[in-house]
């Protein structure tokens, strides 16, 4: 007691009003303000980048969802020699349509209205729109109908923005008759050589199948690994080694996983090239470490008191894990899974290695059929010479981003549901 009292006496009372102290206080506030300003500018900068990306993508990409059209009047009764609507209804409809020779009918109609060279104005596959229209509404074959058909790619580009000189001239010539319609083909078709006919559906379906396989493989393996490593495995040098390996695996460049997939799944197991199955397996290898790491953190964050409580009333280790730890860790595990899956969804490089960059003009029908995925499709289109592909590339990016947003929204919804279940 005495010694501390003496100590207090020796020390002068702090002078909070002294110049040096005021200086220090001012410096402290200045540092505070500087840090705040830096933080705000960092946020503004990243928001700016995001806004720029959005504006550019949406601005370019929205044009990919539209197509320029010209009206074509088709006199079906005169040209089909009296086909009736009933022929194209029901199961035999498509077969009867093939014998009708729609392509010739369309070509003839075009030549009547736009001259001998008229066919060059239109997209080569444009007549297929007439096929679809007949199947949808067979009544039109008994009447004289005007249909809007997509124009040839260069004219489309010229009409929407600026194209080659010849195309611009043609646009000027046809200005009154050109119109813009929604490009449904873009949502239902697959890859094609004509930018007017390409669609995203094949790649979207490929992505869906691939993601499904990735999730199916990576999620259970990742979660079980995380649970085992956290709850069961003894802490020794071997498990330390495993932990280091998993952390390293998460940082391995993705193309190396592609090589691994190529070596293991294609060469060793002999699985088919370009298949969604192989893509999904390869991406699962890549996603799994991310799920393991986030899963371990989520499991670690479950308070030990809950484990003790369950053990204390005689729950077995497995009951503790599955009744208490896993439900509490699940929101965290799901967050990690979303991050892993989002990375897998945007991955191109490993899929190039296993042959998913092939030109695939039909949507995949199963897990072993040739498929491609959205990012690879974007990569392929961005490589095309034809200017019509530029806006298609942007449009595909919009679809990819929407897919990603939907996936994240779903996962966040699931996460919140699990969190509020108690």
């Amino acid at each position, binding site marked *: 007691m005495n010694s501390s009292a003496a100590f207090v006496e020796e020390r002068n009372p702090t002078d909070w009003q002294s110049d040096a102290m005021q200086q220090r206080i001012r410096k402290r506030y200045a540092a505070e303000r500087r840090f705040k300003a830096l933080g705000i500018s960092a946020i503004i900068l990243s928001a700016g980048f995001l806004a720029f990306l959005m504006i550019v993508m949406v601005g370019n990409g929205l044009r990919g969802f539209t197509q320029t059209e010209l009206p074509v009047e088709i006199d079906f009764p005169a040209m089909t020699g009296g086909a009736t609507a009933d022929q194209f209804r029901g199961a035999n409809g498509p077969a009867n349509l093939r014998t009708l020779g729609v392509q010739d009918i369309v070509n003839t109609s075009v030549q009547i209205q736009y001259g001998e060279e008229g066919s060059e104005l239109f997209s080569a596959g444009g007549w297929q729109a007439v096929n679809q229209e007949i199947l949808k509404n067979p009544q039109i074959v008994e009447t004289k109908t005007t249909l809007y058909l997509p124009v040839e790619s260069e004219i489309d580009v010229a009409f929407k923005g600026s194209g080659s000189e010849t195309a611009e001239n043609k646009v000027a010539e046809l200005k009154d008759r050109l119109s813009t319609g929604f490009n449904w083909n873009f949502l239902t078709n697959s890859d094609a050589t004509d930018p007017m006919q390409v669609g995203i559906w094949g790649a979207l379906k490929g992505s869906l199948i691939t993601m499904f396989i990735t999730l199916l493989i990576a999620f259970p393996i990742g979660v079980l690994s995380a649970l085992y490593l956290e709850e069961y495995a*003894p802490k020794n040098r071997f498990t330390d080694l495993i932990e280091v390996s998993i952390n390293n695996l998460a940082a391995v460049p993705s193309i190396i996983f592609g090589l691994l997939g190529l070596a293991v799944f294609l060469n060793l197991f002999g699985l088919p090239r370009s298949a969604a199955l192989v893509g999904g397996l390869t991406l699962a290898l890549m996603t799994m470490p991310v799920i393991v790491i986030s899963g371990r953190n989520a499991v670690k964050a479950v308070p030990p008191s809950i484990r003790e409580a*369950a053990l204390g009333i*005689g729950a077995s280790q497995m009951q503790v894990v599955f*009744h208490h730890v896993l439900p509490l860790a699940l929101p965290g595990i799901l967050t990690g899974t979303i991050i892993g899956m989002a990375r897998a969804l945007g991955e191109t490089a490993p899929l190039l290695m296993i042959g998913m960059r092939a030109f695939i003009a039909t949507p995949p029908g199963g897990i072993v059929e040739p498929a491609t995925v959205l990012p690879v499709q974007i990569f392929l289109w961005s490589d095309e010479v034809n200017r019509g592909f530029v806006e298609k590339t942007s449009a595909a990016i919009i679809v990819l981003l929407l897919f990603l947003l939907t996936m994240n929204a779903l996962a966040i919804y699931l996460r919140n549901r699990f969190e509020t279940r108690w």
Partner: protein
Amino acid sequence: MTELLDSTSPSESPIMTETTASAISAGDGPLKMTTRNVDVFYGEKQAIKDVSIDVTMDNVTAFIGPSGCGKSTFLRCLNRMNDTIPIARVTGDITLEGEDIYAPKMDVVQLRARVGMVFQKPNPFPKSIYDNIAYGPRIHGLASSKDELDNIVETSLQRAGLWGEVQDRLQDSGTALSGGQQQRLCIARAIAVDPEVILMDEPCSALDPIATAKIEELIHELRGKYAIVIVTHNMQQAARVSQRTAFFHLGTLVEYGVTSDIFTNPTEEKTRDYITGRYG
């Protein structure tokens, strides 16, 4: 005491145990748990040195001692909760109803159902009050029907003195209750699996005086139905709730006897110093 404990051998007969117990604390009810020459090691460090204590059915046994004296560690040996710590090693004999609980054939899961535990911090599951209580009976298959389970939940909550407060909101989350209610919920949860022994590890240290009084009252009521062992920092609490008190210091059992004797007339210098507040 030491001579008596030294004489205990692995082939000790029940009669022998009886004599030992009566030597330690005369006039007790039936023996529930015995511990002989228990040592606990955390890696190289010895946390418990040669502790021998008997737990009887009719008495509340309190473990007191300064922080870090090993009383909680010892308590956790009684239902093998120390198994969850990889570096912990327990030697010596601990029996429940004459069965060696560290024997290889002992089922730990069943043991922990028979020797329930209440922890320092109330730790209800983040589930409904009903599910908190019903969890134990469910995993052990103690109820064959929904009615039986309802019945177990109700009687457990009644025994824990919580029924009146929660009967209208059994589906509310257990974590929404107040601290004292949560702790009684944890006691009810332990009771629900019908244990023989209830271990309480400083059950009131996170509670206010009123909630503490309720828990102490509850311990009084539960006495005789279950063998109760309570670890406490609070000497007054030990004096209030227990009939037998063990004083631990630096991993050794300094003194064990009838609570009133320990508090009024301790035989050891250290016990006297601790009880009179010289250290601790």
